[in-house]
Every structure is written in structure tokens, then in C-alpha cells.
């Protein structure tokens, strides 16, 4: 069915009801962004659990220097697929496909995404891409085993023959197109479907961040897709793009991969920055401190992130060290502005330490640790010393575990909006403490063992008592993180349809809290006047309007 949708002017009757098939056929044919977003959320969380299970096996193997839990070949598959599942199949899709899909259209007062059928296609490509990549485990040679970065020449057909590697490439082609289509959809939605009065500089920060993320997707993902096609051609059609033997350049793969790969880390991070911004503002009962500064910081981070790719290649000896070092260090400036603004938002607010807020604060602390170690790595002399050691592993695990906390904050905060039910707060806080403490116990020893020279991607290591102790500690942290996941699942089960949320359980500020939970088909029965970046707050607290009609927010024409 096609609904030609008219914007409800001042009428209060409901928009057209959802019609069409029910049951399984409904899931297969839906084009509703909320249903698609929910499918994304569930699939991504399942991927997180799968990737997490790989991680627990890796940590169990490393708990003793000569672990025999898995074979060396299996270990290679495990760390490759752990990284691949977490980055390609969990973090990315969760960041821009799950909550973004559900929340962005509602935050700007849109009835759906701009291209609902394309949105559905994105999901199907994501699901089939994930299945493709994981099915490598069921082939004779096992899954891909060249690391999640697939470096040439290790990834050529001589060094890594077998279907697992090709399935990895195929899965990435599918999920890559999925991401590109989502990027197109988000940009079109944000540019064309905003409600009257929702100027660009009144959009919630989460929506702004998703816009910038979508642009980054469009800049970065096509490069990866092109690289994968070249890799496949090298493997099967006898081209020599990445092989010295035929006159190719192996390091070209690294250029291509990281030209996607570094923007990708911000494609992962920016949506979570956006979530945390909203959550901190709502639970401090204040507007976002330095709204425009926040927007420009996001844009600068994204712009700079395209010029830093070779900080992953410092030790190749063929990259322009000063350029990449300087650009990488510059990113710390807008990131610092953000951290300052987050603290400024809480400053003298009425802070409510809900589970979502705790998760957001956990993000803040953990991301700071990860970001600071990134600044170390951006300095070539320090990177020469730590590259390919556990220090790097610790750096990005601080960062991505921070993002996991932010994602959990997002689920506690927005889950009630799209399910209609709250999660249990006490269990949420228990989950937070397991997750937060577990993360630090897991990552901090890895920094130290990295500084003591332990290389990454090894299944066995020399019997050094220090290394052993630090590895054991890290494995304990991994267990705590695993427990936090179980606590989360327990919370889902316990809270199932138990605490009805109502439209606005947190006294929210942005448009999504104006409509019902879950929102109706096409999202809104009516819209409030939009006069600031906090329309719902202004409506509910007329005595504390944000900035009524002021030029500060009004120059967004």
C-alpha cells in the first residue's frame, strides 16, 4: 500500500492506520522505519553476543602462556572474526541502522525515512551479509583468518586460499552497500523531511551527528567496496593490484583500507556521541551546553578524520609522518570541546543518576582513556614502539567499550520509546557496574602488557610472570563484561511488558517524547510548535522555555 501522506495541519484525528500483511509476511514486507530499526537492533545485539563469545574464547586461550583450548589456525579465525563481527556486523549497523533508524525520523517530526523501501533493502543486505561472512565457519578451510583488516599479501589466494576468505569479502560487499544506502536515506530524510520550524540549527544533536555520520559513510564506504573488488580480482582474476610479483603495490591496500577504516571509527563513534549528548542533557534537566559548538565540533571531527588514515601505517616507512601526525593530533581539539560541553551540560544541573545516565558517564570516562591513548599513538616515535602490541588493542578497546556503554545508555533511554516499556533500573545499574569495572579490568592491563612488548594476534606467548599476571587480570575483566551481558539479557526477560512507559518517562526535550510510546504508524498525531532545539520541553514547561524565538536558534534558514 502507498499512503500519500498529508501533514496533519491542526487536526487531531489519527493518521492512517497501518494496513497490509501480518505475522512473518509483515516482517518480510515492512517498510516502517521503526520495525526495520527494531530488526536492526535485534540483529546487531545478536552479533554482539556472537562476537563476544569469540572474545571470551580468545581470553580463555590467553589465560595461560601455552593455552591449548584452540589450535593456532582456529585462533587466527577467532580474532579475525571477532574483529570483523564487532566492527562490521555489530558496531556499525548498531550505530547507524538501529537506534538511528528508529529515532532520527521521529526527532525531526518526519513520518518515515525518505526512501522506506531502500531502508528495508539496507536491512536485508545487512542480514544476508552477516550470514555470508559468518558462514565461513562452516566451510572446509574455516572462516577468514587474515585479521579484520585483510592486509595484502596475506589475503591473496596463495596465503589464504579457501572459501572463508571469499565469504568474508562477499559479506562485506553486501553490508557495504547496506551502509551506503542507509547513508543516502539519512541524508535525504534529514534534508527533506523536517517538520515546519525544525531548522538545521534546531535539530537535536543526535540527528546532527547522524547527518554527519551519513556523509562520512558516503565518503568512506565506496572506497572500501572498490578495494574489496580489487582484492577479489587479485584473488581470482589474476590481476596484480596488490602483489609485488605482477608490479602491484601491497601497501595500496592499506591506503584504501584505512581511508575507509579511520573514518569508520568515527562512523561508529559519532552516533554514540549524539546519544550521550541527549542523555546527559535530559538527565541533567538542562539544554545541551554549547549547542552550536557541539555541531561544529562534530563536523570538524568528521572532516579531519578523512585526513588521518595513515596513522595506522606509520611503521610501513612510506607515509608522510608529519602530515598524518598533525592531522591526528588536531582531532583531539574538537573531541576536547565535546568533553568540555558534556561536563558543561551537567554543571549545576539536577543530575538524575538513572541507568542510562550512569552508562553515559561510564562512556565519558572510558572514552577519555581511549582518546588519550590515541593521542599517544598519533605520535610516530611512540607509535614505532607500540605498534602491533597490545597497547593498540587496549587503545581501541577503551574506545569501543565506551561506545558499548553509550549504546546501552541509548537502549535504556530510547528502548521505552519504541517498545512502550521501561527496563528495570536497579538491574540496569548492576549491569552498569559489571560493565564499567569489567571494561577497566579488561583494558588497563592490556596497556601495560603492550608497553612490555607483548605483540597482538598471538595464541601463545613466552612464560613471563608479568605478562601472565596481566593477561590473567584482563581475562577476569572479560568475564565481568560477559556477566554484564547476561545481566542485560536477564533485565530484558524480567522487565518484559512489566513497566509501561507512557509517552515521556524521562521528561524528555526533543520531539520523539511528544508522541506516544510506541509511536503510531507515521509517528505523529500532531506536532507542537518548534521554536528551539527542545520543542517538547518548551511545550511541557512553558515557564522555562529554551530561548523563545531568539535569533540564537533562528538563523538556520
Amino acid at each position, binding site marked *: *500500500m*502507498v*499512503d*500519500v*501522506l*498529508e*501533514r*496533519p*495541519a491542526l487536526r487531531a484525528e489519527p493518521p492512517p492506520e497501518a*494496513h*497490509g*500483511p501480518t505475522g512473518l509476511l509483515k516482517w518480510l514486507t515492512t*517498510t516502517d522505519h521503526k520495525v526495520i530499526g527494531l530488526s536492526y537492533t535485534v540483529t546487531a545485539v545478536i552479533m554482539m553476543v556472537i562476537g563476544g563469545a569469540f572474545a571470551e574464547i580468545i581470553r580463555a586461550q590467553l589465560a595461560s602462556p601455552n593455552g591449548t583450548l584452540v589450535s593456532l589456525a582456529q585462533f587466527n579465525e577467532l580474532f579475525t572474526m571477532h574483529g570483523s563481527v564487532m566492527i562490521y556486523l555489530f558496531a556499525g549497523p548498531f550505530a547507524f541502522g538501529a537506534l538511528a533508524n528508529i529515532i532520527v525520523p521521529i526527532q525531526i517530526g518526519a513520518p518515515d525515512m*525518505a526512501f*522506506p*523501501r531502500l531502508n*528495508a*533493502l539496507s*536491512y*536485508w*543486505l545487512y542480514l*544476508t*551479509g552477516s550470514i*555470508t561472512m559468518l558462514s565461513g565457519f562452516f566451510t572446509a578451510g574455516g572462516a577468514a583468518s587474515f585479521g579484520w583488516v585483510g592486509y595484502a599479501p596475506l589475503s591473496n589466494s596463495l596465503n589464504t586460499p579457501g572459501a572463508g576468505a*571469499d*565469504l568474508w569479502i562477499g*559479506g562485506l560487499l*553486501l553490508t557495504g*552497500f547496506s551502509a551506503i544506502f542507509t547513508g543516502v536515506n539519512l541524508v535525504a530524510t534529514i534534508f527533506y*523531511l*523536517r*517538520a*515546519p*520550524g525544525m*531548522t538545521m540549527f534546531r535539530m537535536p544533536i543526535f540527528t546532527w551527528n547522524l547527518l554527519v555520520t551519513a*556523509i562520512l559513510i*558516503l*565518503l568512506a564506504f565506496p572506497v572500501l567496496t572498490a578495494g574489496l573488488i580489487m582484492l*577479489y580480482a587479485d584473488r581470482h582474476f589474476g590481476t596484480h593490484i596488490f602483489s609485488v610479483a605482477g608490479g602491484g603495490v601491497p601497501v595500496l591496500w592499506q591506503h*584504501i583500507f584505512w*581511508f575507509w577504516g579511520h573514518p569508520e571509527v568515527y562512523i561508529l563513534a559519532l552516533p554514540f556521541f549524539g546519544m550521550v549528548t541527549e542523555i546527559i542533557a535530559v538527565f541533567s534537566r538542562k539544554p545541551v551546553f554549547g549547542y552550536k559548538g557541539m555541531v561544529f565540533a562534530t*563536523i570538524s571531527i568528521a*572532516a579531519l578524520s*578523512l*585526513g588521518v588514515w595513515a596513522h595506522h601505517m606509520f611503521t610501513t616507512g612510506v*607515509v*608522510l609522518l608529519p*602530515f598524518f601526525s598533525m*592531522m591526528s593530533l588536531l582531532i583531539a581539539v574538537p573531541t576536547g570541546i565535546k568533553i568540555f560541553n558534556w561536563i558543561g551540560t551537567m554543571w549545576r544541573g539536577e543530575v538524575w543518576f538513572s541507568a542510562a545516565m550512569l552508562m553515559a558517564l561510564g562512556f565519558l570516562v572510558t572514552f577519555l582513556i581511549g582518546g588519550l591513548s590515541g593521542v599517544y599513538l598519533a605520535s610516530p616515535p611512540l607509535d614505532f614502539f607500540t605498534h602491533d602490541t597490545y597497547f593498540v588493542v587496549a587503545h581501541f578497546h577503551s574506545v569501543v567499550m565506551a561506545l558499548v556503554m553509550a549504546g546501552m545508555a541509548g537502549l535504556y533511554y530510547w528502548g521505552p520509546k519504541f517498545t512502550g516499556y521501561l527496563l528495570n533500573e536497579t538491574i540496569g545499574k548492576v549491569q552498569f557496574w559489571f560493565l564499567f569495572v569489567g571494561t577497566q579490568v579488561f583494558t588497563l592491563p592490556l596497556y601495560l602488557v603492550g608497553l612490555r612488548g607483548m605483540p597482538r594476534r598471538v595464541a601463545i606467548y613466552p612464560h613471563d610472570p608479568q605478562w601472565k599476571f596481566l593477561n590473567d587480570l584482563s581475562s577476569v575483566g572479560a568475564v565481568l563484561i560477559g556477566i554484564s551481558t547476561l545481566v542485560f539479557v536477564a533485565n530484558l526477560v524480567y522487565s518484559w511488558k512489566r513497566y509501561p512507559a507512557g509517552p515521556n518517562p524521562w521528561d524528555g526535550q526533543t520531539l520523539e517524547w511528544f508522541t506516544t510510546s510506541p509511536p503510531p*504508524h*507515521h509517528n505523529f498525531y*500532531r*506536532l507542537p*510548535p*518548534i521554536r528551539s532545539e527542545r520543542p517538547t520541553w518548551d511545550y511541557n514547561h512553558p515557564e522555562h522555555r529554551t530561548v523563545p*524565538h531568539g535569533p540564537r*536558534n*533562528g538563523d*538556520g*534558514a
Partner: protein
Amino acid sequence: MKVEARFLLGLGLFFGLIGLVYWLWSGEDAGGVMLGAAMLLGFLPGSYYLYWSRRMDPRPEDDPAATPASGAGVVGAFPGSSIWPFTLGMGAFVTVLALVFGIWLLLPGLSLVAWALLGGVAESRRGGHV
């Protein structure tokens, strides 16, 4: 429309600048080309928006004083449900599997893709659900 245009043009300009600096300084081509392409991705849609922002009145969503009523009217056509994205997705899936398990899979894969594309277009034309 103006903010959208400036946003994209600004990004394009930035990528152009650092691309130029990088390419002249390093002499490495791959990065220069990729940054050049990034510049185009900012400029092409950016200049399109600039062109239109000069030729049309601000839309209600660009007007800080707009009321919900000023946006009344047709927003767009939104399909309530459609089987074609799923069909297309499965077609792409089978097509990609042909890269791994054999060229013969291209036949069912591409057939599904073609069928889904035709079906989807026909659905839009008819304005209804098949």
C-alpha cells in the same frame, strides 16, 4: 536549503585543500585521488543545493517562525509495505554467493534482482501494493 548547501560545500572545500597539500607534499597518488573524490562528493550535491536555495522560497522547515499549519499539505508517498526490497536483497545475496560457490548462481541471483527491480518500479507506478 542554505545551511545544507554551505555544509556540503564547506566539507568539499576542506577536502580539496588538505588533498592538495597532501598530494603536493607527499607525492603519493592514492591518497590524493581519494581526497579529490571526497572533494567532489562535497561539491556536487553542495552546488546543487546552492543552486536551488537561490531559486526557491525558504521551505517551512527552513523558517524559524513556521507553525505546524504552515507545513500542511502533501508530504510524500510512503509505501506501507512491499515485498520487493526483500526479493532484491535475496537476489543480491545469491549473486554474491556466486563469487564464492560458482558462476551458475549468477543465473538465479540476477534473475531475482531483475524481477525485484521490475516489480518495485511497477509498484511505484501503480501506486499500490502488488
